[in-house]
């Protein structure tokens, strides 16, 4: 496994776009070549070494044997691991928006929290976040028919709103709360929320959403009875019938005000 460490040289104010921080891009390059890759600081085109210190092994290897360690605060660095197909990224702290977007393989591990649009349009691979994540985890870009189509996202904390919007496949597990409208307009996929959620599965065509805490359920969902899930008893609902949906929402308790 080739080890490459990226360390910010400063605290960023203007956000950085760094889609080149990705095992696929790094695998074929020496450390100094990596340092010469393009990144953007707001509207200024820069190179990685302007903003980051690059260190580690200087031997080329395959993508899948590439480990990129992000040491420090990357909370304002966007698009890390974009289009990633293999290999590993380990972030010791937070990550900015759009991490792991269009990812098809490999592993993205985040010790801190991740920004919005984590795993946007993801098709494969694994994302694990120890902290929280922002809005639109595993969703699509505006107007896109499908968000996440495959792969796994695991969030140990809570997420913002619109978790898994337009999701067509794959799975998302959230230990904490799932925010407003998780699984909206879903056409497949599997979402498990450990905590609470507000109006899961709005306009869902198909797919399953499990809420282990309390959920507010739409009036366009039809109650199907109690079912067992991982040792819990859950209320099962079918919907979203307003859109002829055939998805299921499962919730441990129902928020009826």
């Amino acid at each position, binding site marked *: 496994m080739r080890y490459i460490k990226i360390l910010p040289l400063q605290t960023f104010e203007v956000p950085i776009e760094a889609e080149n921080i990705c095992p696929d891009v790094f695998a074929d390059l020496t450390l100094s070549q990596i340092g010469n890759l393009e990144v953007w600081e707001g509207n200024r085109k820069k190179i990685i070494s302007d903003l980051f210190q690059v260190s580690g092994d200087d031997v080329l290897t395959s993508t899948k044997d590439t480990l990129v360690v992000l040491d420090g605060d990357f909370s304002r660095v966007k698009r890390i691991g974009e289009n990633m197909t293999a290999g590993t990224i380990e972030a010791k702290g937070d990550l900015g928006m759009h991490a792991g977007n269009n990812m098809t393989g490999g592993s993205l591990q985040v010790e801190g929290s991740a920004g919005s649009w984590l795993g946007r349009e993801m098709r494969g691979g694994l994302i694990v976040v120890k902290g929280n994540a922002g809005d639109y985890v595993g969703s699509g*870009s*505006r*107007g896109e028919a499908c968000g996440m189509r495959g792969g796994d996202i695991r969030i140990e904390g809570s997420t913002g709103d619109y978790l898994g919007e337009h999701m067509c496949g794959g799975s998302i597990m959230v230990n904490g709360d799932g925010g407003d409208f998780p699984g909206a307009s879903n056409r497949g996929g599997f979402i498990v929320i450990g905590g609470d959620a507000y109006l899961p599965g709005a306009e869902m065509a198909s797919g399953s959403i499990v809420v282990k805490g309390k959920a507010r359920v739409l009036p366009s969902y039809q109650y199907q009875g109690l079912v067992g899930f991982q040792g819990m008893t859950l209320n099962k609902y079918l919907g979203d019938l307003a859109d002829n949906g055939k998805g299921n929402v499962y919730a441990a308790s129902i928020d009826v005000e």
Partner: protein
Amino acid sequence: MIIKGGIVYDPANDILGEEMDLCIENGKIVEDTKEGEVIDARGLLIMPGGVDGHAHIAGAKVNNGRIMRPEDSRQYVEPRTKLLRPCTGYTVPNCYAIGYRYARMGYTMAFEAATPILEARHTHEELEEIPIVDKGALTLFGDNWEVFDCVREGDMDKLAAFVSWGLRASRGYGVKVVNPGGGECWGYGGNVSALDDTVPNFDVTPREIIRGLTTANEMLKLPHSIHLHTNNLGKPGNYATTLETLEAVKDIIPSRDRQVVHITHMQFSAYGGTGWPDFKSEAPAIADYFNKHDHATMDMGQLIFGSATTMTADAPLEYNNARLLHAAQWSNHDVELEGSSGVVPLLYLRQSPVNAVQWAIGLELALLTESPWKVVMTTDHPNGGPFVNYPEVIALLMSAPKRDEEMATLHPWVSSRAILATVDREMDWGEVAVMTRAGPAKILGLENKGHLGSGADADVTIIGVKPHEIDPSKDHHKIKEAFSRVKYTIKDGQVVVRDGEVVAVPQGRTYWVDASVPLKQAERLQVDLAEKFAKYYSIQQSNYMVQDAYVTNPEVIEAEGF
């Protein structure tokens, strides 16, 4: 400027592949010149600048398409350069992309196909922002209350006066008629389904509207004929309506040396069958009619596989599209007193049986109609597909092997429900030049476009193929490539594209038609209009007309028939 040694195809002047020099002075083609740049075009294919007679490139529904489709705007993105503004979009490109992409394909003029008078100001705001090419807009008349009233009363004088006024109010170039009567019915969610259906509350029929507007069009001697989107468009079996429509105007004498009716995007109106299960091509029947009659022309409306954004003033059609295809998005926009429109994004699939047949129909229409002067090449951008695919269509028309290659990837209906596989005609350069240049210019009545005779606008395309050395049938991919990014586009004598790149960004002209009418008729009309504004419109009449500020570079064509 002198363009030396090119192989010139100028079918309007009966020049078909002659090696000759072209001279340009002050933006016009001239017999001889000693001035300016010399372009070495030895052996290269030369044609007049392309003329797109029908595309949806500006106005309310085009912009609605952009607003609805951020995912489309993420396609084909080109960042800003020192010379060029940034470009976005495939089916609904931004204004700059429209101008640059036409120019790169050697096109120098394009017509926006459907503008309600009430919203023409918006159309012109966008046309002004489209760089390089000359432009014009066709004005919608087929669902207008004043038209209905004149037609019902049989008052052709007043109708002609209204058409003239409507063209002036909208700074429009010609009379567009879309599913006549259907837009009004759609005001309450209905439609018309036959030429003799009555439009509720107005007591007129589609047949009467079409005949009335055709008559008025010829009274005014407008450069273009009426430009008709037929009733029942998009429905299986509609070819019968199309043929009936063609028959309905056969007896009206054109006032100029051109057709009396142009049926647009015929592909959508040449359907057989009684429903989708027995859907089939009736292009042979349509082409046969065109081969036997000379009063009509058409454009293809060729389907292109992939993403499209359908947009039309035929709002009930769009509603049906959305319902039938369970489209995620449907937009509708009714225009008070003047009709309606709709927008639905679609995906045309090679393995869809209906789409495969639709694709074949467009090509059959072109290949089975003997005279290329009767068929303009279009994709009804972005309904059949985006205009950037014209080079693909050219290659399909010129190469039977390419068509065979394509058909092999399509749903088998392409062979069982259409006869394209049995058609071996391959268009030559002259025929392509007619279908993309000389033909549309003649059909639209553009005297200085579509040809390279002395006095013509110096709009010239130099294409990077050598017609004497290439076999288009075999090397169709080279044809497509060469037409996608031409060697040179010259607009009004200025090089705007060189080696496929835009190198200059002049502002094109906007063509509109000012048709004279006797004062008495104009005054009679004003009485009607004053009432309609006082009672029905939501704006004042004085705020209605498109002001000069929106047409900063006009080319006014005068028509003095009436």
